[in-house]
């Protein structure tokens, strides 16, 4: 039992506002929900939509079928009519456009007019929310409380919005009241309704990150927005003149002692590549959130892809250790970004945290996070551990040199150097020091490898069918495995969050015992499958690839799997 609502319209018509309002109402009413967004690279016009999926438990991802279509313009109806079921309903404004005559599922609600009657055209969104609520057979209590909170500081707006809500509710009730029955609620405790970028911003803040420098770029701008709104928590957010400045500022700040972050997308990351190599050479901790979107070049700026895995794995000239982690689902991402900071500090390496538009812009209802689980060890030299004269790049067994901060110890200076250097950080040219420094740095890779988490098998524990994936496809893959299970198939998922150094034990063991393996990726060339082969020599049987800028739906994956077993 679940309800799927799609709200569509032109950019600027309030699609996101309706979705956000409805989402929060559902959250507070104790439902599980998820929300994703599909939007164009423009500010007004075109076609955008948000999908809200509501169930007893929190769903893992969006699906393709729609129960209620909130159609803010005619285009929305034509684009999405194929997703409608027999019993679906279409909420639309009959004074703005009309549905084809044979279309019997319409719920006409004059959104604009009712909003104006309530006090202003801007409230058309609230009218639409009212209409949806009655169609679902819900009351307006929770929505009213929300409007109260949202508009408390705006003179008279609470009342006007109440009125708009009621008008929509009433008008729609003439056509369709409680046309759907809501799922059974299974959630008692408090939940957060939060999207990927917000989770990452919150995690960064709670990980003690105190400096973000970035240059705006979809789909990562949300992280910058989140942190910029939290400057009272003692974080500094500086919009850089370009991504080169961003990464270099962040390196300077990290060198000087604060946990620092930058966030970007492929094109901006491309500009950070030299700085990444600098982080590798100077052994400066840094976390880079890289939100993927379809490339090459500008590509499809507001859409999703997993096309930059190999790019981030090998980005930067020269050889140096790094870690690459990815965002799979919200709960995991909260703790994993903290792990990124931990690894960066402990190993003094750059850590790349891969997300994508699908992750960044999708929200779900999740239980509160455990802030006590977050790590804030800085791995700095303490007074008592200090060996004088201080050597920033002392050669050690594990490759990790003692890290002190400039100004930390009287009489000691800290020299970070982008040239090959000796233990003090001074430029060298000789072959022997070079060799020893390369080895020192690369020894850290082993330490990093030991920190990588093996993926755990989800689904059947002795599967015939193995799905493999990484990053934001987690939800769709998990649902696919569930569906295969319902069909009596022995199916399981190995989903990777930690990508580099690649943890290969679990998968190498199981791969030989399954009948069919599938690697599912949101890209055109199967980059994870290639990495996997590079590391193990093993090949998966099938690749399921999608590269049209849209996220996977579970039903698409299911279909591809069924074709091949």
């Amino acid at each position: 039992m679940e309800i799927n609502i799609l709200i569509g319209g032109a950019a600027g018509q309030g699609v996101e506002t309706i979705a956000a309002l409805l989402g929060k109402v559902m959250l507070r009413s104790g439902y599980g929900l998820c929300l994703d967004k599909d939007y164009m690279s423009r500010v007004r016009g075109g076609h955008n939509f948000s999908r809200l999926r509501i169930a007893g438990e929190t769903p893992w991802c969006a699906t393709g079928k729609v129960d209620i279509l909130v159609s803010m313009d005619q285009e929305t109806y034509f684009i999405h009519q194929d997703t409608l079921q027999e019993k679906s309903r279409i909420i639309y404004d009959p004074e703005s456009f009309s549905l084809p005559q044979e279309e019997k599922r319409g719920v006409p609600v004059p959104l604009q007019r009712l909003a104006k009657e309530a006090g202003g055209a801007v409230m058309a969104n609230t009218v639409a929310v009212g209409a949806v609520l009655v169609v679902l057979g819900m009351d307006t209590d929770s929505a009213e409380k929300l409007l109260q909170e949202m508009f408390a500081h705006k003179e008279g707006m609470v009342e006007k919005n109440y009125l708009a809500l009621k008008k929509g509710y009433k008008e729609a009730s003439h056509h369709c009241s409680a046309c759907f029955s809501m799922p059974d609620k299974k959630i008692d405790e408090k939940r957060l309704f939060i999207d990927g970028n917000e989770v990452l911003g919150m995690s960064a803040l709670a990980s003690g990150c105190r400096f973000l420098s970035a240059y705006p770029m979809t789909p990562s701008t949300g992280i910058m927005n989140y942190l910029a709104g939290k400057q009272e928590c003692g974080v500094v957010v500086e919009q850089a003149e370009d991504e080169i400045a961003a990464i270099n500022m962040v390196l300077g700040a990290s060198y000087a002692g604060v946990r620092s972050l930058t966030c970007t997308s492929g094109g901006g990351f491309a500009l950070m590549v030299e700085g990444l190599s600098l982080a590798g050479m100077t052994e400066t901790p840094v976390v880079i959130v890289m939100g993927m979107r379809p490339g090459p070049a500008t590509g499809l700026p507001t859409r999703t892809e997993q096309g930059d895995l190999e790019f981030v794995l090998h980005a930067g000239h020269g050889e140096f250790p790094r870690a690459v982690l990815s965002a799979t689902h919200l709960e995991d991402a909260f703790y994993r970004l903290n792990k990124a900071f931990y690894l960066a500090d402990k190993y003094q390496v750059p850590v790349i945290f891969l997300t994508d538009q699908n992750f960044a812009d999708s929200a779900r209802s999740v239980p509160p996070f455990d802030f006590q689980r977050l790590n804030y060890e800085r791995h700095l030299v303490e007074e008592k551990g200090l060996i004088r004269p201080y050597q920033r790049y002392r050669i050690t067994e594990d490759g990790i040199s003692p890290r002190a901060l400039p100004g930390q110890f009287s009489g000691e200076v800290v020299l970070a150097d982008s040239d090959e250097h000796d233990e003090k950080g001074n430029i060298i040219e000789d072959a022997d020091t070079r060799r020893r420094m390369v080895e020192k740095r690369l020894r850290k890779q082993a330490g990093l490898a030991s920190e990588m988490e093996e993926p755990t098998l989800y689904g059947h524990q002795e599967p015939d069918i193995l799905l493999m994936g990484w990053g934001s496809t987690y939800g769709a893959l998990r649902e696919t495995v569930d569906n295969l299970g319902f069909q009596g198939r022995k199916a399981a998922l190995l989903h990777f969050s930690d990508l580099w150094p690649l943890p290969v034990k679990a998968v190498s063991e199981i791969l030989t015992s399954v009948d069919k393996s599938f690697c599912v990726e949101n890209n055109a060339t199967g980059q994870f499958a290639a990495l996997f082969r590079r590391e193990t020599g093993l090949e998966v049987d099938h690749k399921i690839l999608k590269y049209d800028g849209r996220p996977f739906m579970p039903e698409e994956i299911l279909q591809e799997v069924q074709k091949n077993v």
Partner: protein
Amino acid sequence: MFSPNCFTTDQEIAWCPGCGNFDILQALQEALAELELSPHRVLLCSGIGQAAKIPHYIRVNGFNGLHGRALPPAVGARIANSSLKVIVQSGDGDTYGEGGNHFLHTIRRNPDIAHFVHNNQVYGLTKGQASPTSDLGMNTKVQTAGVILSPFNPLSLALALGAGFVARGFSGETEHLKQLMKAALEFPGYALVDILQPCISFNKLNTFAWYKKRVQKLEGHDTGDQEAAERLARQWGDKIPIGILYQVPAPTFESRIPALQGEAGEKPLAGRPFNPGSLVHLQEEFM
């Protein structure tokens, strides 16, 4: 107690004997000593080039980063630890060529950074190509028909961008240069000192003698007069003014960043205690 010797290192200096960089290094060591700055409280950021090797020859904290990228790490370091005295030092190619964009936008920020550019009007380390400040017509292996791009005037540019401290020095006037450096180091905000520096190996046009003949110490100039400063900045040829062209402080970048103000602001960002548990309330807005 503080002597220039506090700032010397054991590194062999890789500059050509006779290079103007030696004088700049000496002026800097003396300036720091006279200002009684302890080595561990000073941070010197540089890029890549001959000039940019300087953090290896002076005992202070150093961040010897990428070519063209000396300024951004310095700004980041100031944010992280505003108790550090931050100096940026690099070549003309580094600063005005590869790093031009940071030059523009760092001036707009006005962080408390003293910026000393070793302007030898040539790419020294890569063996003699034209730099943005090379004079028109200068012949090099790449500019075989002579430089055709009009020379970049850092002083005019800094003034047009509203920099609060704009000066020109000459490595051959070490005492004068030291005074400029001290003034820049004491100036609250971004302070540019463009330093004419002979490159004996590759710049056969703007030699020590060439500069020596032309430089003229500013006297009686009102450093609060922007238009006068702009006129002086444009002077290049028979007479080249050296000294402080403009000096008018404005609120610094650091003084406008919310997280660096107030009570918490008294402790550098890098040194503040932190406990993840203190932020559990962040979740409320999502409930």
